[in-house]
Every structure is written in structure tokens, then in C-alpha cells.
């Protein structure tokens, strides 16, 4: 993802990650992995719930977390592309997301 960041920017797309992790946890991840795109924190899963992506009890200690999902949202906040995996091991590849990003006009 980070490696392809320039390509996303060239396609006019700004990647943003969202999870229930606290900002400190995400900062740690960003530092270690060298991520420079924004990572947002939704600790009580309020936004995740609003997006109907709640995986109740899916985390450690039955914590409510997000099910994995990716959306390409245009400037009118309309979904132009989305991906909902059925298997947590299978996630959208940067290639697929870039292809969708480049089709935007």
C-alpha cells in the first residue's frame, strides 16, 4: 500500500485506514510499517456501525471490531467501487484498488 502511495496520488485518490485501534496503537503501526497515509481511530466502533460493518465480538476478548471492507468514495461521497471480503485472509490488492482508482474521472 505504502509502496504504491505515489500511484494512488497520481490517480487523485487519498487512501485512509480506519479501525477500532486507539490512536497510539495506530501511530505505533504507522511508525513501524512506515505508513504515511492517515490512519483513523474509531475506538467505540460508532462509524463502523454507521457503515454497517460491525463484526460484533470479532476481536480479542470479544471486542467489537470492523469486518474488512474497502470503498472508493468520490467527492460527492458516493461509493464508486467497493470490496467486501468473505475471508479475512483475502483482502483487496493494491493493484485492484489502483485499477478502480484510475477508472474514476
Amino acid at each position: 500500500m505504502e509502496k504504491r502511495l505515489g500511484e494512488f496520488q497520481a490517480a487523485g485518490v487519498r487512501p485512509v485506514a480506519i479501525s477500532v485501534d486507539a490512536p497510539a496503537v495506530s501511530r505505533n503501526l504507522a511508525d513501524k510499517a512506515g505508513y504515511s497515509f492517515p490512519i483513523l481511530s474509531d475506538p467505540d466502533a460508532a462509524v463502523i456501525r454507521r457503515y454497517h460493518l460491525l463484526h460484533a465480538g470479532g476481536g480479542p476478548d470479544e471486542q467489537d471490531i470492523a469486518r474488512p471492507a474497502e470503498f472508493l468514495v468520490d467527492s460527492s461521497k458516493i461509493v464508486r467501487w467497493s470490496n467486501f471480503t468473505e475471508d479475512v485472509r483475502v483482502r483487496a490488492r493494491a493493484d485492484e484498488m489502483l485499477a478502480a482508482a484510475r477508472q474514476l474521472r
Partner: protein
Amino acid sequence: MSDATEHRKNLAPWWGLLFAVGAVGCNAAFFARPPLQGALPWLSLLFAVLALVFLAAGLQRAFGRTQVYRGKGLSVVLTVIALFPLGLTAFAFVKARELPSATAAPQVGQRVPDFTLSDTSGKTVSLDQLLAPAGSASTSQSQAQAPKAVLLIFYRGYW
């Protein structure tokens, strides 16, 4: 001819173990995000089924056709060893797919809900800011004009 040369080698349990290791090994392949990763869960299942077929055949040979094959003990040992990767494979397959449906989530053509959340430095960022030219949003990227789109990536979190 002696007894030893008449007995054939029972390779089936070895194949069983190999497929069992391959089945659990598929889980490691996900980290590389290979192009056909969507097929990996099914490949791991296929390997697991093949492992079971070979292990069953191995046991059947060792115990049912003792005139042709030997190695009862070895076939049992290999089968027991193979059960660990097979158990892991089955567990991973079931756990990884225990996901709630996303049918109620915003679909293509629908408008997404607004949000305001904290970034890693504790600063609040809204969807509107993310869609605005860089500078107003919290990001180290230098995007002079407003992005065409944002790519929202919801993930399970790290623990």
C-alpha cells in the same frame, strides 16, 4: 526371493503429510498478496482433502494389505503428525470466514455516512476534510488540489 524385496514401499502416508503441510502452508502465502489469492482458501481445502485421501489409503495399505505393504507403525505416526496441520487448516478456514454479511453497508452508487475521527496524533479528521485539498486534512501527503476520491480501508485492527 526374500520377504523384504516382495514388500512394496508405502509412500501414501508421506504424500498425505506433504499435502497436509501444503494445506497449512497456503495460509502463509496470503501475506504475499498473490494475484490469485482468492483461490488460496479453496486450494488449502483441496490439499487437506488430498491429504486425508492419501493418509486413509496409507493406513488401508499398511493394515489391510499386509502381504504387500509393511510399515503399520510409520503410517500411524505420519497420520497423527499430519492431523496437526490438518486441524490448523480446518480451524483457520472456519475462523477466517466467520464474517458478518456486508449487505447493509453502503453499495456502489450509494452515499456514505459522514464521520469525524481522530488520527494517530489525536487530531480530528472529517470525511469533508479528507475530500478537501491537502493542508486542511491531516496528512503528510502534498496534494495541491482536492482528491478525486478517498479510499476508505476498514480493517480489523492490530493486536
